[in-house]
């Protein structure tokens, strides 16, 4: 079997190997064609109809480019290979399969659909089950050197469990995971470009080729960490700014966030119960956006949650704090919230906060030599890595975390409420 290519709007032709094609052709992977990448965002940015299918291919495409660059640039810089050629080839193949399968466990509407998960349940739980219990496990068993267990050991297993496994290789496997889960991972590299393209916004664009070209590896003692050459700093800056803008303008868009709340309510009716680790895998896999939407349509006459979601029956955002609000802005927010509750006791009000998605807030983790957090910047004038903020004044203003809080109210009363807020804040 020869190489097959997929035509991708972001990366051009994406070549896939025979083993990868077998996985792509499996039912659990094909299901991703029906899971929208950005959940309810298509109801705000109408182009955002793209799915986890294309994103998974895109991450696989980028991860081998990033790995090749980090390993090759290490050899150029230090004069010795990072891995033997056999190990390098194995890790490259492994990383591509990890990237291809990393999103298999998403529920309908991706992250927006996780609102019906029981506390503590994550979509990764289902990724693990799909890897181990479906035809994908059989496909991998037939391959010579990659198993479901190995993929999960590197990408998903807790450290306390992974370390018990003699097959867990340190520091190599932590290094590999960094390509999929770090400040500079290929998941983010793909979704920023892809989401930006499909939403029709420019905020998520950055020079991906320059960024990947400047990747390197920082090796010291037991540490093997993905790093950036100083020459790629401006591409890295662009990437960090792209994350900030996309969070504020797309991922945390005020209407999308309210639609996510509506969706959660409608999905509770769809599933009947909350999704738990006991939810049967065949039931989980038989669900996707299309199935859920069909269910909403059937219930439209009887279930108000389904009706409200389908009719885009949203509340109005009547107040929003500044993007990086501090303590005084938080206090004003509380004051305004209390004012609304006191003066409009019969009006439905909802509150949202970026704190609810704390793990999704883009944070600039400058490289901290003590904790190892962040991405080391390698320069030609210092043997120790530099950190992003000390090299980039441009980003210093983004160092404080995003802290947006919002108040929503019934549309019919929105103008009246806004007017009383203006009254309260007049002269302030």
């Amino acid at each position, binding site marked *: 079997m020869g190489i097959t290519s997929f035509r991708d709007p972001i990366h051009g032709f994406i070549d896939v190997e025979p083993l990868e094609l077998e996985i792509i052709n499996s039912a659990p992977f094909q299901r991703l064609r029906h899971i929208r990448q950005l959940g309810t965002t298509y109801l705000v940015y109408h182009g955002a109809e793209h799915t986890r299918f294309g994103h998974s291919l895109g991450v696989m495409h980028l991860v081998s480019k990033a790995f090749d660059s980090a390993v090759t640039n290490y050899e150029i810089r230090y004069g010795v290979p990072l891995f033997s050629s056999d190990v390098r080839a194995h890790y490259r193949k492994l990383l591509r399969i990890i990237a291809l399968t990393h999103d298999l466990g998403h529920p309908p509407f991706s992250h927006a659909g996780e609102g019906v998960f029981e506390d503590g349940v994550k979509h990764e739980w289902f990724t693990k089950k799909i890897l181990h219990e479906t035809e994908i496990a059989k496909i991998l068993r037939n391959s010579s050197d990659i198993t479901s267990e190995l993929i999960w050991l590197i990408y998903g297993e807790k450290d306390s469990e992974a370390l*018990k496994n003699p097959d867990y290789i340190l520091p190599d496997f932590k290094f590999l995971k960094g390509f999929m889960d770090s400040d500079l991972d290929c998941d983010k590299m793909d979704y920023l470009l892809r989401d930006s393209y499909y939403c029709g916004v420019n905020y998520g664009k950055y020079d991906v080729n320059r960024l990947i070209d400047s990747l390197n590896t920082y090796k010291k003692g037991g540490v093997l*960490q993905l790093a950036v050459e100083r020459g790629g700093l401006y591409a890295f800056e662009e990437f960090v700014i792209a994350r900030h803008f996309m969070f504020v303008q797309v991922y945390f868009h005020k209407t999308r966030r309210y639609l996510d709340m509506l969706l959660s309510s409608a999905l509770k009716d769809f599933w009947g119960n909350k999704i738990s680790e006991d939810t049967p895998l065949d039931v989980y896999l038989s669900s996707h956006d299309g199935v859920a939407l069909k269910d909403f349509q059937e219930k439209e006459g009887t279930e108000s949650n389904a009706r409200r979601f389908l009719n885009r029956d949203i509340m109005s955002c009547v107040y929003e704090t500044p993007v990086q609000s501090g303590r005084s802005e938080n206090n004003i927010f509380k004051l305004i919230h209390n004012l609304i509750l006191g003066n409009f006791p019969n009006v439905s009000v909802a509150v949202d906060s970026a704190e609810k998605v704390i793990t999704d807030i883009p*944070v600039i983790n400058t490289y*901290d030599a003590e*904790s190892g957090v962040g991405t080391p910047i390698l320069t030609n004038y210092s043997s120790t890595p530099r950190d992003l903020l000390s090299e980039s004044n441009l980003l210093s203003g983004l160092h404080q*975390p995003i802290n947006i809080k919002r108040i929503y109210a019934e549309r019919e009363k929105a103008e009246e409420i806004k007017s009383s807020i203006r009254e309260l804040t007049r002269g302030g």
Partner: protein
Amino acid sequence: MGKALLAIIQKIKNETGGNPGKKQLHKLVYLMQAKGISLGYEYGIHFYGPYSEELNNDLLRLCINGDVSFQIKGQTHEIEPVDTDESVSVSPENEQVIDSVIRQYKDTSPYDLELITTAHFVAVNLGSSENEILKGVKRIKGDKYPEAKILQTVGHLKAEYGI
């Protein structure tokens, strides 16, 4: 969890006269939990020893709410508590452990804290015999720590943590 963390940050500052670094805080909270108090933080192994994502998220929440700010000193992130009117106290039994851990390790270098906590992590998760700890630490840390130093740390864990 956030308010207890804020109390710990303030206590470290009061005891040492300086703001804790991120690594120091992660390791001290780890050792407080190792001494038996429950702060609810699950730890994995990061590049430089035990590290908790949840603790990091709580730090971010404290920063968002204006309770702490992050200061960059050289290549270390210091956590500076902001004056607060709210009472940030912990229960008396937890306070005793928190205070004793801070006092005991306030002058311990980040390098040594990393070894103590990594060795403890190995003992709890991989096996607590001297040989298992030695092997486990070497597997995680490579040749960063000499064997004699690891064995000395095993002695410390036995005396202080009953391992």
